[in-house]
């Protein structure tokens, strides 16, 4: 009897212990989990959360800007700056010098750093924003401001001047740097880093140029040339959607997805404009439209004389590399003697377009794209366009990349032959022989016509006028020959703007012909 009752009591006791232990386990486990949840929530508080926690005692020094402030990082940076400056000097010299060489304008034979010091003022990080726009990628935007006192002396060698030191002073850089980290499942977990400057807000890089022991006027147009070089490097290499891709050592991954590639094609029909502003003294404006996605690749319509409600019905095709951020810009200009006047400008963000759907859009023309500069609120008329976005399939994309490669090779070949002085020069269907008036038809690929003066450029100053003739070898292989009188660029016949599709990594081979090629007007 005693045995049975003992067993019974013992069993109940044993089970009770276990039940108790289990209760304890659940209790502790719940406690840990709820704490984990709390910590997780407190790791990313926002304003409402904090208000709820703190109630009326909300700490007043706390704010939640879009770009989070990083005072501590700035403190560290200013302390570290003298060392960073010294270390960066060598790296900048090694990495930027070849770039300068590649982008150097025709008139200059050599562009090197004579002296490079970044000064005593460290850059300031105004804020950092981290987001994940795509799976497997982290996007970090750094709002960077640097009003530095660097001492940079560029040694410029040109045909006429042996060596002219140019000092770059009072540098100011205001930009948002976008850094994208491509993640992978291998330590250090980052397989590639993409660096670019955000185009919105536009990077602002200001500086003053000063010639050391001489005058900037020794080479006419020199400061413009340096400005242009800097601007081209920035916009064509760094400004989003252009980017620099760095792969982190050790991990072998395909970074081709990160590179900028032709993504789609925008077929635009510039139909008409209404109620344009009259800028002419006598008669009415003679409007035409230039359209572009990348500013170095502009397309132009016919000029409609003496009309404020012109109809063009002009079809052009533009290549888009990044639908999310890029936009097409339409500029309505009045053809005039001398500088053409702007009648209005409008932009169309590509992100609004639905693929494969043709849409007619009426755009309101503005005096400037920069909203801050718009002063008058007068109506400038409207522009009607039809637009269709076609997203490239894999094959089409590959074809576009191939074409891009071809252009690059063509450029390299021409450079090797000495036809163009640097890869910066336009390689269009035609190399215009300035002065002689004879059009030399090259074996170019791009349909634009540019006046390429290098090699044959007239050394001198002022505006050289010449006859340019050119042929674009386009798509089918047939060239549409257009010719016209054009003014050569500011210096040595350097005309890379206008409608000529010239740029370094051009992804821009228009597949179809553009008729109106001749008579390029330099900007």
């Amino acid at each position: 009897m005693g045995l049975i009752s003992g067993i019974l009591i013992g069993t109940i006791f044993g089970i009770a212990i276990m039940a108790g232990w289990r209760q304890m386990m659940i209790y502790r486990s719940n406690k840990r989990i709820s704490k984990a949840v709390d910590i997780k929530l407190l790791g990313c508080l926002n304003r409402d959360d904090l208000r709820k926690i703190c109630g009326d005692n909300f700490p007043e020094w706390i704010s939640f800007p879009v770009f989070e402030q990083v005072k501590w990082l700035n403190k560290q940076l200013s302390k570290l700056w003298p060392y960073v400056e010294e270390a960066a000097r060598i790296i900048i010299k090694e990495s930027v010098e070849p770039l300068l060489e590649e982008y150097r304008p025709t008139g200059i034979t050599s562009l090197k750093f004579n002296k490079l010091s970044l000064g005593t003022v460290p850059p300031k990080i105004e804020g950092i924003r981290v987001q994940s726009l795509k799976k497997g990628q982290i996007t970090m935007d750094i709002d960077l401001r640097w009003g530095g006192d660097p001492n940079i002396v560029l040694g410029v060698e040109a045909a006429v001047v042996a060596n002219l030191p140019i000092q770059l002073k009072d540098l100011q850089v205001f930009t948002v740097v976008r850094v994208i980290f491509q993640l992978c499942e291998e330590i250090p977990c980052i397989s590639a880093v993409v660096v670019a400057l955000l185009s919105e807000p536009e990077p602002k890089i200001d500086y003053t140029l000063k010639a050391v022991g001489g005058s900037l006027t020794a080479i006419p147009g020199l400061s413009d040339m340096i400005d242009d070089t800097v601007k081209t490097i920035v916009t064509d290499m760094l400004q989003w959607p252009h980017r620099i891709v760095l792969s982190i050592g050790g991990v072998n991954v395909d970074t081709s997805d990160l590179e900028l590639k032709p993504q789609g094609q925008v077929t635009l029909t510039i139909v008409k404009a209404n109620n344009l502003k009259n800028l002419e003294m006598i008669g009415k404006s003679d409007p035409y439209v230039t359209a572009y996605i990348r500013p170095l690749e502009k397309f132009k319509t016919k000029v409609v004389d003496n009309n404020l409600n012109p109809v063009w019905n002009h079809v052009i095709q533009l290549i888009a590399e990044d639908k999310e951020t890029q936009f097409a810009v339409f500029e309505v200009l009045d053809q005039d003697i001398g500088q053409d006047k702007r009648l209005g400008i409008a932009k169309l963000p590509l992100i609004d377009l639905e693929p494969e759907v043709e849409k007619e859009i009426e755009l309101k023309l503005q005096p400037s794209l920069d909203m801050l500069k718009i002063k008058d609120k007068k109506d400038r008329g409207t522009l009607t366009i039809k637009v269709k976005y076609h997203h490239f399939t894999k094959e089409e994309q590959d074809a576009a990349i191939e074409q891009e490669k071809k252009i690059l090779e063509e450029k390299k070949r021409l450079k090797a032959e000495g036809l163009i002085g640097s890869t910066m020069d336009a390689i269009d269907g035609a190399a215009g022989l300035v002065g002689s008036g004879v059009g030399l038809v090259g074996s170019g690929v791009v349909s634009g016509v540019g006046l390429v003066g290098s090699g044959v450029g007239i050394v001198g100053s002022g505006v050289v006028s010449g006859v340019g003739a050119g042929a674009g070898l386009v798509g089918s292989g047939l060239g549409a020959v257009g010719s016209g009188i054009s003014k050569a660029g500011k210096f040595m016949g350097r005309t890379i703007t206008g409608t000529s599709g010239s740029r370094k990594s051009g992804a821009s081979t228009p597949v179809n012909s553009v008729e109106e090629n001749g008579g390029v007007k330099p900007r």
Partner: protein
Amino acid sequence: MGVISTLLGFSGFGIGVSAGLVIGYYLFIYFQPTDVKDPIIRPLVERDSETLQRMLPEIPLWVKNPDFDRVDWLNKFIEYMWPYLDKAICKTAKEIAKPIIAEQIPKFKIDSVEFETLTLGSLPPTFQGMKVYVTDEKELIMEPSLKWAGNPNVSVVAKSFGLKATVQVLDLQVFALPRITLKPLVPSFPCFAKICLSLMEKPHVDFGLRLFGADLMSVPGLYRFVQEKIKEQVANMYLWPRTLEVQILDPSKALKKPVGILHVKVLHAMKLKKKDLLGASDPYVKIKLTESKLPSKKTTVKHKNLNPEWNEEFNMVVKDPESQAVEFQVYDWEQIGKHDRMGMNVVPLKELVPDEPKTVTLNLLKNMDLNDVQNEKSRGQIVVELLYKPFKDEDMPTFEDAGTVQKASEGTPPGGGELVVRVHEAQDVEGKHHTNPYVRILLKGEERKTKHIKKNRDPRWDEEFKFKLEEPPVNDKLHVEVASASSRIGLLHPKESLGYVDINLGDVVHNRRINEKYHLIDSRNGKIQIELQWRTVS
């Protein structure tokens, strides 16, 4: 009868308890799931006040203290990266553990040890604030407040004699306040040579440990004991001022310390070309080490001599014998105008055998371009003797922290010492007419000056001066004055004082070393950072 019944009762109880425990174990523990579910996270706004109350002790430091900075961007970054980090870390951990396990298990007669699950969970570590300290030393100090309350699940299965034992670690929580010090700062990327880690407080550690599915940490008292043990262990190792040091750069390389001395003896030159119109050239030799900022050394000028004999000796400090080269340039001295270069050549230091003198005869070249046709023309020859002496390990200047005071150099009088004044930088100095600051240091009538820095309100000199003293300067003062000189030679505003400060040297003798920013007198906001060291022979 009563005794037997009681005995039976007790033994029955014993059997009953063991049976009960087994039944209870199967009932309550064994058949319960062992996997870890992701916790459900409800937004904070939906919480009631009671659960909010529970959160209050965990409020991040950046909310409570204005001197802590919010680092939510970093938290977000880690959050996005966490799934990848998790996989990468687990993979590496498995790879590292495998050979160790393979080596160990035969000793214990265990058939296999395997990770059943290994994941760090879905909750990443968070930083609840970041604080940095700014000192005048060459270091960066930051203190992030790290909190990781994760849901990792690590279970190890060991098999032996047909039995299976599982050990599972889950719900690990680590709260710590580490201090990260980067020092010393060096002028090559990543700009610091060492990372020092230490904990400012004892860390809080909590976790669940399941053996055969039962959480041992739930046994009352055991958890507290284990936690104390862990805290103590970690505190012993890393609690401040104990540190964990991670070397990033080789300090001697990073700082470019001298590694040897090059003795150069310029013997003579032969068959130099005539450069002057009247009479022979007046040659002299300039000797320089490449990649060195030190000024080049010059021999004397031998007038009207095309086969000059110098026999002059020079010593140069070598920093990197692999890449540096010694450069000889023969110039023609002129009374008026530019001195013409008659020829040059270089000897890379790696061609020299250490501690072995070598006499070399060099053909003089126009320049170092191999393809230049002008180099084929004979320009004469120069004969030099070179000897490279690397520092022996004992006299190699060992890498020292900024905080330690070196011994005084040779020639310091016994009983006295050497006062080393290092002028780092100044801030916000401004002159009325010009700001080209330099520093003038006065001690007992002895005056030293730094170089001028043109047009700079925040100049940085980094210059060192040494004063040899017969006795400790207990009652002396060091006069430090920042002055500005006009960049042009003008009679108007030639020189201007931007501020001064008198530093009591008694403190320096007592402390051996003082590194501080002083406010300048007669200046609006100016400050100057001066490092003072008192070095004695012993």
